[in-house]
């Protein structure tokens, strides 16, 4: 799906700036499970391999010469160890890492690692500023991450989505570990267009407010917003 003339929204959770063949993606949260392990949980690794596979899929599906990361590259300090593999992938894939715009999780990234060119807070890409999104947003056009937008319908459907405003493109989190914030429940995005990822397609659902209103009634059999799909939920009778 193409928006604002230059931007291709891909089902691989990245927005590609077509004139410069630059993919912008956000919120990789590398080392997410390491952070959980550090908090005492016994969870297996594997998200790095998944991230690499997803990046490979992105690069093979679209013409991507350059990469811009819109923040939250790592989950926390422990994730910095994982960057080596990521850099190696860039070299194999022949993709140039233009910049990392640091996010709120990226503290300690620039100090401990010499690899990616960490810029201060934003980067200009054909008139669009790439920012992470955790601070005050610039007045002009901006591409941002941070919010992990998704469309949630019941418990079964939680699809990451892009939000498109007049001067904004909000990216979904690249990491599937991020839970996603249900845009249907938030007032601030009501005027934005919502493009949700369903498998290998990006579906345009129109304005968020309109979608929220229309899915309140059961349109599709078995799909109701806000209803729990759990079998353990009982009838209200008992």
């Amino acid at each position: 799906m193409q928006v604002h003339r230059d931007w291709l929204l891909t089902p691989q959770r990245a927005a590609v700036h077509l004139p410069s063949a630059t993919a912008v993606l956000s919120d990789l949260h590398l080392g997410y499970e390491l952070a959980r392990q550090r908090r005492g949980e016994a969870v297996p690794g594997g998200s790095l391999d998944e991230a690499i596979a997803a990046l490979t899929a992105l690069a093979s599906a679209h013409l991507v010469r350059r990469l811009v990361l819109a923040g939250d590259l790592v989950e926390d300090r422990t994730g910095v160890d994982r960057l080596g593999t990521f850099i190696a992938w860039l070299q194999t894939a022949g993709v140039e890492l233009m910049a990392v715009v640091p996010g709120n999780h990226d503290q300690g990234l620039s100090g401990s690692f010499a690899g990616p060119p960490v810029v201060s807070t934003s980067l200009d890409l054909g008139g669009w500023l790439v920012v992470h999104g955790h601070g005050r947003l610039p007045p002009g056009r901006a591409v941002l991450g941070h919010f992990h937008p998704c469309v949630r319908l019941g418990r079964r459907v939680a699809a990451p989505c892009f939000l498109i405003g007049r001067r904004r493109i909000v990216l979904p989190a690249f990491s599937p570990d991020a839970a996603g914030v249900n845009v249907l429940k938030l007032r601030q995005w009501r005027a934005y267009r919502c493009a949700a990822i369903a498998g290998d397609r990006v579906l345009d659902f129109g304005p968020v407010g309109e979608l929220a209103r229309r899915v309140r009634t059961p349109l599709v059999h078995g799909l109701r917003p806000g209803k729990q799909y759990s079998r353990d939920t009982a009838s209200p009778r008992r």
Partner: protein
Amino acid sequence: MEADDLEFLRTVPPAAAAVAALDGPIREWFAGRFGGPTQAQRLAWPAVAAGKSLLLSAPTGGGKTLAAFLPVLARLRESPAGGVRCLYVAPLKALVNDVFRNLRETVDGLPAGPEIRIGLRTGDTPAAVRRLMLREPPDIWLTTPESLAVVLSQPAAAEVFGSVRWVVVDEVHALAAKKRGADLSVSLERVGGLAPGPVQRLGLSATCCPLTEAARFLAGVGRPCAIAEVPDQVPLQLTVEPLDTAHGFLNALLDRLRPELDRNRTTLIFTNTRGLAERLTWAVRRSYPTLADRIGIHHSSLALGCRREVEERLKRGELRAVVSSTSLELGIDVGCVDGIVLVHPPGGVVRLLQRLGRSGHGPGRRRRGLVLTATPAELLEAAVTGASGRAEQCEPLRVPAPPLDVLCQQLLGMAAQSWWTPDEAYRLVRSAYPYRNLPRADFDDCVNYLAGRHRDGRDWLPSRLRWDGDRFAVRDTRTARVLRCNVGTILTDEPRRVIQTDRDGEALTDPATPRRSDVGPSEPGGATVGEVDEAFAERLQPGDRILLFGRSWEVQEADGPELRVREALGRPAVPKWTADGWPLSEQLAERLYLLRAQAAEALRDGPVALEGLLRDQYGLEESAARLLGDFFEQQECMSEVPDGAVCLVEVVGAEYYVHTPLNRRANDALARVAARRLARDDDEPASSVVADLGFVLSLRGETVLTADDFRGLMRADRFDADLAEAVADSITLRERFRRVATTGLMVLRNPLGGRRRVGGADWAERRLFSRVLAADPDFVLLRQARREVWESCCDREAALRFVESVQRMAVRVRRLAAVSPFAAAWTQPAAGPAETVDTPARALERLHAVLTGAERAG
């Protein structure tokens, strides 16, 4: 254990012989205070004094607590040695607090003698008191299973519990069938391992059957146990009555409650959900403004302080009514309740009797109960439940298969307490009754998981253990801390705390003041009102009003980890708690199905015959019988009443209503298999909704199913395999896995350094599930989750029995113009959760198609 090890005490010893079992001063004190012993005490004292383990089943108010404790107190006074000598465990904090106070009072009343110290340790005990209890252990240690597990996972446990002689387990029937019971059973074995000699186990239980199962659970494998049963001799007076809901359910209910409230000194009202309890309290308070502050509410999502306040006032006789969901079902002494009202049938005989047993402790004892129903279907269900209750045909107690997630938690607790070889640990665990048949392979898988070892030998998870030769212990102090903060987590749902921001809630503070020599109940802060489900809290915004503790609260802050509220006026929303609810019991479902057929048969002989049947065998009034008569006639007019020889499928449009003699769990298994077969073999994605006595399959309208198709959908061949396939990737299994992984401490409810929100509450079911499945499809916690789905969410065995019998039955498909009364009442819950077999992506695409299609049309 051989049956020979269980001994039924059938003859009740004379009072004199029973009292002789007590020591002199206590004997005199008892005679002066109570006169003669109750039947329970006469049965128990000689056996307890003789050193036997004993399961005592008696109705509430039968002097059970003293039956167990008095001989123990007598022995404690004989030898004032140090250390904990008696351990008391009860499933509810409220009950532990209650027993603490009763025991304190008893001990204070005893004639002068050596001091007996009593300590109370629950999740609410402040840290300073916890430390004090470890330093100077009291003689009697009162606790819950979770808190016991916490204390047992510290090296100090060896000293604290090194001199235990008696263990008293309260409400055995409520624990034995649960995971918490399995947890406790291993904890008790560990206490036994620390004790100097054999531990005498005393169990208190309400009526349950079979008692032998409860006794084996109590005693552990290979140990003898005596069983004493005191039948409930208080006459049961049970009325089942339909509400006239023409002007709304709540109005009808309020009208019907008025005479009850007027007549009774104290009425206890049970609802089946916390939400209805809240709504009803709110409504009752509004329609009886003069009584408003004497109407209480009690359910498990209210803060401890709120519940305690209600319990205290109930006991002091200050309340005219208390509305409760399930939390007042168990044995805390609720004082002189003289009327019990059940709103909606309770779904099980045990539950019915338990609720009715809350009354009739006062003078002129009677168990008086009123069951109010909203629909003819409920009326019929209540009639069956009542008849089974009068005949005391309870659902049998089943100790579940050994839960492996609980075992992992226990193993880590053991490792935190001292060093073990796997053989030693295995032997100890196997002596707990729920784990008597635990295969060594399952045990080894648990140890391997804790050691972080994959079955192929590589390390795949962080290890929680360190090894010294073949002995293991917890890896480091950090891991021990993780364990301490999370032990006792047996997860049911994920609640969000509701905090009152302005502190005018003086009533919320705890009235009980602990004594100096004791370690008593206390309350950290007084501003928590209760908790609501995360899913409900997620939808709230500042300014929304919610109903909790029977009051209206306005949400101030909804973003943080807690919900901050301020009391406000105005109509509030009722919270929805997902853990609410349970299916009709298997027995009742079958009996209900049969009664329907029987009633239809009787109706063929005329309305009088039906009324006679319902009156004579089910104790229903004439008006109620008439109501049911109409209901059956409507069904007969539109369709038919299915009996044991026919499987009825009613079709309305593309919805297929299947009637079965099964409860929700068995229907769940059946519906899953049918939907799976439709999707796989006919490429027809169907969604299903299950209920008691039936389920609904909704198709998309292209396919028409015949009786033969239904025979195919319900064939016994490959049923197991298809069910496994249907469950394999279901949301049910994922959810169950999240809970199992939390209980098994793979993910933590209280991680070190607090929670991070990136992954969200459902990370384990969304992400961890898939990763674990990919790494090891037979991973021990995954296996446990699967087992639980098979056992508790969908009753595979009952469904299988049914599909086998369907082959001998007629399958009749009837096309109807509208939903029949039976289908409306029994095959679909009022607002049922549907499950589709579509992938999420496909579901989204369909939604998109519908939305854009509608756009073009409009």
